[in-house]
């Protein structure tokens, strides 16, 4: 048996004749993050990469490729997005081939660039043992992989892709990581309401309204028909004001309530680095407490906001 990467390439090569496209990762421009690769011919397979730099969740491409026979390489958390898309009937199981992997954590390129103080202009970077060795204009340095992981890896609940048609490598438990970084939600909770409001005003003041958060979200399937751009009703106006940007974030959070798997793509994609997954995490926590439900785990379940109980066990209504 070869390495996980070789096994993955072999599996893709074998399946390719029956598929229109296979989505995987290839080396990115700067060595800190791999980039999506759309494989349509056998020669593309040589470009495939698999290591902790495969941070991007590729599931977001699936709804746009509906109708084609698609193969996709998925980490544990990516597969949760796939489950959610299947559950909402936004993609078809029979058209899909999932190459599942066991993941030991994915790197956060922004965090690494900050730790290595090298910007995103590295000359070369390679993974060796538990370290990422970086050569940039500022010299060479090594960052321990564990320190450079995405925040979500510290909360990983399943590192093996499920659903999966072909599992590559050995099944295993999520990485065991110490010292989970404090989340923005934790930090907000220590603030007064007024401070929280000011926090968002300041954060949203930096938003450039590129909507990368929306484009990156695997569940934002409306894309060009987004309610944020409708004139009638005019949910969000064109003014360059934090109020409107905050409104958009509330919209993203509420439109993904009960659906968001905390894949972190919105934050990963944000060019300004805004902590926009925070609101979604708060909603997820509430949904877990009220309905004992987590998105992306079971494609047969009815999502919590698509159903109700006459007597809600965990809802206490106010008596006036």
């Amino acid at each position, binding site marked *: 048996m070869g390495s996980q990467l070789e096994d993955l390439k072999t599996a893709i090569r074998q399946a390719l004749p029956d598929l229109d496209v296979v989505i995987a990762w290839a080396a990115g421009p700067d060595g800190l993050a791999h980039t999506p690769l759309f494989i349509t011919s056998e020669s593309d397979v040589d470009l495939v990469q698999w290591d902790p730099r495969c941070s991007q969740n590729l599931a977001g491409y699936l709804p746009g490729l509906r109708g084609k026979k698609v193969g996709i390489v998925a980490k544990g958390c990516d597969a949760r997005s796939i489950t959610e898309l299947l559950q909402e009937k936004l993609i078809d199981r029979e058209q899909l081939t999932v190459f599942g992997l066991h993941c030991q954590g994915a790197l956060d390129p922004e965090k690494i660039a900050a730790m290595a103080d090298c910007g995103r202009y590295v000359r070369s970077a390679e993974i060796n043992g538990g370290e990422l060795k970086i050569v940039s204009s500022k010299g060479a340095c090594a960052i321990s992989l564990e320190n450079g992981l995405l925040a979500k890896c510290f909360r990983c609940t399943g590192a093996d892709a499920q659903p999966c048609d072909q599992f590559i490598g050995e099944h295993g438990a999520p990485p065991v990581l110490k010292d989970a970084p404090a989340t923005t939600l934790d930090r907000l909770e220590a603030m007064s309401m007024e*401070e929280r409001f000011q926090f968002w005003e300041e954060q949203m003041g930096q938003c450039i309204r590129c909507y990368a958060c929306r484009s990156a979200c695997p569940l934002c399937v409306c894309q060009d028909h987004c309610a944020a751009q409708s004139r009638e009703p005019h949910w969000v106006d064109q003014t360059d004001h934090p109020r409107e940007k905050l409104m958009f974030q509330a919209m993203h959070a509420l439109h993904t309530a009960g659906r968001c798997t905390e894949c972190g793509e919105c934050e990963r994609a944000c060019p300004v680095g805004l902590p926009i997954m925070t609101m979604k995490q708060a909603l997820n926590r509430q949904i877990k407490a009220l309905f004992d439900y987590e998105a992306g785990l079971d494609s047969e379940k009815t999502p919590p906001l698509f159903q109700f109980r006459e007597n809600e066990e965990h809802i206490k209504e106010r008596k006036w």
Partner: protein
Amino acid sequence: MSVLEGKELRIIGFLCNWCSYGGADTAGVGRFTQPTDLRIIKLPCTGRINPLFVVRAFLNGADGVLVSGCHPRDCHYTAGNFYARRRLEVLRSLLPVMGIEPARFEYTWVSASEGQRWRTVVQKFTEQIHGLGPIPAFKSGTCLEACLGTAI
């Protein structure tokens, strides 16, 4: 400018057509005195309420938002209020994360015959909002000021 300027706060009420709007009407017909801070928006059913209505109201400067519909099992469309209850409970967790005091928002059920109950709800909720005072404003001012700033 209203004589009540400074004394009144802005409270928005989203009421379903079949029960709570009728309940508010009953309170009016019964000539019950009530605080006048509440502005009512009539909707067909609480099931029509998108939680974003509430967020939009707050971001546009409402100091409080009240949602009221038919009692559970009495919804004119059978289940609108059951779905609404779930959505509004989820919304409740978003507001404090945004920095909006959760007590600025409430939902309840008032039937068309419950004029008295309607008055109690309006009174208590209005008091609650007055206890909290006006909603915090953006430091950068209003959208209009931002627009004028760019224009000049």
